């Protein structure tokens, strides 16, 4: 009866000037569990909360290493993120092989941004159903980028995407001016604090569902999972205890 006639493919406009397929893809990002990214002068950090489909299953990986200087965190269709991370990995390798240089982060993100945009313009394709936070270190310092299915790429001091990520963004907006001079450890703890704001009532950050990634000038891209996150989760609780005292 009132079926939407303008959302059959990404190459059809609605009379109101919208492309529904792109909007749906952006909704897919909001279904994924949240990821938070933030940076200081020397480091850039990703924290993510992992989900498992049921009690018997393992937790779905959220942070992927691209190269020694670059990593991504995903929210949305994980399988689309796999395609994009494979592409980024081969581009990073190509840059190393031909020029002996780490792929500049901005160029990497713009490259996948162009791929995503092409998907919204050509008939018979669909947009990627995943949003990414890309962190990396290059000659111009540490960077944090957001990649979205529409092909829009933006750079941030701190940002969050995924389910209930608005709460994390509110937290980041209140605190981002302090991040610039923070140590790596403080940055991670702040990231976790923002990430915790996205959790549902009754849910906790623990070693099973927390994932941490960081990179800096003298720090290669590192991903911490499981028991390795305990130290940071402890710090998070410690800070909490101090605030309530």
């Amino acid at each position, binding site marked *: 009866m009132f079926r939407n006639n303008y959302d059959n493919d990404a190459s059809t406009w609605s009379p109101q000037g919208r492309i529904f397929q792109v909007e749906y893809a952006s909704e897919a990002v909001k279904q994924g569990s949240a990821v938070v990214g933030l940076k200081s002068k020397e480091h850039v950090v990703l924290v993510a909360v992992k989900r498992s489909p049921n009690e018997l299953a393992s937790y779905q990986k959220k942070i992927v290493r691209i190269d020694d200087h670059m990593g991504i965190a995903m929210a949305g269709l994980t399988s689309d993120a796999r395609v994009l991370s494979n592409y980024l990995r081969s581009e990073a390798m190509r840059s190393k*092989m*031909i*020029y*002996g*240089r780490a792929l*500049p982060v*901005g*160029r990497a993100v713009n490259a996948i941004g162009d791929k995503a945009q092409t998907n919204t313009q050509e008939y018979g394709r669909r947009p990627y159903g995943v949003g990414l936070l890309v962190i990396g270190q*290059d*000659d*111009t310092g540490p960077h944090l980028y957001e990649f979205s299915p529409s092909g829009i790429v933006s750079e941030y001091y701190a940002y969050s995407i995924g389910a209930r990520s608005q709460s994390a963004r509110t937290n980041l907006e209140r605190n981002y001016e302090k991040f610039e001079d923070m140590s790596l450890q403080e940055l991670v703890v702040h990231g976790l604090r923002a990430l915790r704001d996205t959790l549902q009532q009754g849910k906790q950050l623990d070693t099973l569902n927390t994932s941490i990634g960081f990179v800096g000038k003298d720090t290669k891209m590192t991903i911490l999972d499981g028991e390795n996150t305990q130290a940071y989760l402890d710090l998070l609780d410690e800070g909490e205890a101090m605030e309530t005292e």
Partner: protein
Amino acid sequence: MDPIEIRLPHTIQRPKATPNYGPRTHTTRPIVTGTSVIAFKYKDGIMMAADCLASYGSLARFRNEKRLMAVGETTLLGVSGDMSDFQHMQHTLESILTQEYDMDDGQKLGTKSVYKCISNIMYNRRTKVDPLWNSYVIGGLDNGEKILGYVDLYGTTYQSATIATGFGGHLAQPILRRRVEGREDELSEEEAVQILDECMRVLFYRDARSLNKLRRAKVTAQGVEISEPYMLETNWSFAESITGYGS
């Protein structure tokens, strides 16, 4: 006993390479060539020199050629060998630099990257058995670090404080070893120029494919600077006493 005579049937002919038949042969030898390039590290960066001659065989055919070029803002490239292959390399590098400029993100292609890129191009072409018939000297400052490297038509690479290609490898390299090696960080610009001129003068005396008109170039923290052509003082009075082929 008579030697055994083998006669080929008149129908068997040796395969011959012609423009329409057989393997491509026009890239198998250099045609218009440049001679030595010499380069070394000194206190403020890299010094390099090459003369202005492009020979056609033994004929001094083109006497105002530029064999030193800047690649980006901090890299210097010197070439010996086939000049048309050098022009091909120039075009390739220019298009790479244009792409980099169009990125417009403040990321510069450093000397190490240029060196690696040229090395890859050279090795790639030798792998196709269609080499670019050149020896390249790449020098520059990469984040304040002095880089001086060599790559040739086989894709062979090495880095050193002193480099000389072609005839210079025989005549200039010993002088550079004696006067530069171990003193790369103390050599003043004046002394560096003096060493460069001494090497180029020896080369002009003894290398029959060289010219007494040359350019000097340097890379310092201020960037790349390539001089206008200049001449060296020479003294040929000894020549009168030479008769025949010497000895």
